């Protein structure tokens, strides 16, 4: 395996405290904020994501890495904003109306963030109108809907319909324990994934298709 950059390694190991110095070193060495994110941080989270997928580590370890990455972003974000750089993709995510389950949704949000997407989390029990409103406001590339109750699956259908009716072009990906690929197709979603690991692939696939 290739030698990894110390910053990448620090993210992987979740050594949060070392991160600010390492970021500073990169900046001092003339790397720009965008390439630090893309070439140092994201590869770290990718390794972590892979390890998680292979069941080598657990979510707590992954969150430690995510927090280390956040530490870096704290420094880099003002620079990115100043340079007019935004994460390549924006996503909105939420649990549909009537449903309070959010652990699964939160994990998906975390994975998406790890893949360097900007994620706006609308929380739980989100009415269709609120999704539509947020889409109009943030113009995301992707919307993620979560439902864990069989009795809120109809609300997922209603939400997809409301978004389509609003006429804003956006890819919708759905998930949650009772959701199947068939149901996703039936209600007109663009994508489905059965767990957080594959949620990143599902999102990237849709975003590529779009591009």
């Amino acid at each position: 395996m290739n030698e990894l950059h110390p910053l990448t390694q620090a993210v992987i190991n979740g050594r949060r405290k070392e991160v600010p110095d390492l970021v500073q070193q990169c900046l001092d060495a003339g790397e720009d904020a965008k390439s630090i994110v893309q070439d140092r941080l994201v590869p770290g989270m990718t390794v972590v994501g892979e390890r998680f997928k292979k069941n080598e580590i657990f979510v707590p370890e992954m969150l430690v890495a995510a927090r280390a990455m956040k530490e870096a972003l704290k420094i880099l974000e003002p620079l990115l904003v100043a340079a007019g750089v935004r994460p390549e993709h924006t996503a909105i995510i939420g649990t549909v109306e009537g449903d309070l389950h959010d652990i699964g949704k939160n994990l998906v949000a975390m994975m998406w963030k790890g893949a360097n997407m900007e994620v706006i989390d609308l929380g739980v029990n989100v009415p269709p109108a609120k999704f539509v409103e947020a889409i109009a406001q943030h113009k995301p590339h992707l919307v993620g809907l979560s439902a864990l109750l069989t009795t809120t699956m109809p609300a997922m259908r209603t939400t997809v319909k409301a978004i389509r009716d609003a006429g804003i072009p956006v890819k919708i990906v759905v998930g949650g324990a009772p959701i199947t690929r068939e149901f996703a197709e039936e209600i007109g979603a663009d994508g489905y994934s059965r767990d957080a690991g594959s949620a990143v692939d599902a999102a990237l696939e849709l975003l590529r298709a779009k591009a």
Partner: protein
Amino acid sequence: MKYTSLAIDDPAELIFGVAPHPLTTREGMVIGGGTVYPELNFTLPPITIDAAGMAEVRRNYADIIEGALGRAAELTAPGVVIEFETLPPMTEHPEWGMEIVNILIEGMEREKARSGLKSVLRMTPNDNREFERPPLMRRGRYWEAMLQLFEGSAAAGAELLSIESVGGKELHDEALVNGDLAASIFSLCILGERDMRFLWTHLNDIAKKHGVYCAGDTACGFGNTAMVLAEQKMIPRVFAAVVRAVTAVRSLVAYECGAVGPGKDCGYENPILKAITGFPMAMEGKTSACAHLSPMGNLAAATCDTWSNESVQNIKLLGGMAPTCYMEQLIYDCRLMNCARAEGRDSARMLQRWLVESDVATDPQAFIISPESSVELARAIVGSDSHYHAGIAVARKAVSLLREANAAGRLRIAGNEAGWFDTLDDTLDDLPDSEGEFISQQLALADSTKFIAAEYGLT
């Protein structure tokens, strides 16, 4: 602590079908009196619950109860527990919940008249308090509506009152995904304990007023969330197992406030509570695979007094509607246990042992609720002077039991989990002895947008 000694201190006596303090229903089912009863739970297929959809909702429940009880009668079940766990709109609109309660009770009475089948209704309104975030725990429309539904169903004939209460859960999901045992103890033994005491004091008043029983609560949103997350390989199994042990401290409070069992099915901490209180307990395992996979499908049965399927949608399987099929499966499971029991203590003990041996070495969560571990954990709880200290003590005991079993090769633990023992012990070592100090520490760390300390009597 109300309980300072154990009702059952011999693991061999912590066994299915028999509880030191059995409970007799109006129709004469004796739960914990030597017979294990099936306990059926069911839910709706994908449909909307609103005023317009209520006709279909009603039809579903009417069909479920007719089909399932009909099959129970054909298989000559000695009696069955029917659990009605509501879905959120049914608690929010208690009049909808009551419509279904009445449908179920009518169905039960009709079958009783037809075939003589005994049955009893466990009423489990779901806890909607979380719908407001941060949740109001002691007031507001969700609280009012929930009490109204409890009151109404007790009056209508639901003899067993249960709930899967959520007090403390606002912070616990976060604790789980962070693998943070301190935050877990705060959620369960500080926040949970206070909410349980408030809630169950109210429920006990309702039960007394209507001459029904407070059955019990479960730390489902804590322990089972951990179990499901561990099953999905999101968090380590050893961590989930230790959290399970701590949940017993929270669930115990219901019994301290007057509950008499059978404890709620999905409370895998129930064996510990049975050892402490001597009340009968519902359990679920392999035959609740319809609701969630489980690492202790057989072991969970070793100590049960009613045996449940947790939940199944009213959908059509090839053999019939799913609730009817699951009723059949539960009845056969129970028949086997009751056969062994009918042959005498030694036979029952033998089956109990196989049920335990089946799973005990394969998973830390199974290991932790085995009769042997349960008695030890129970002892750690009753030997403590506060719920906070009980939480620490039981967690410590759990870690040491797991560590020893792993070292002795009596338990298989995945390679990437072993390091967690030290992490957990370190966390426990760092906890202050003073509850007040602990509370201040945790309040400082907690996300104050997520919960309102005053709703737990903390300020």
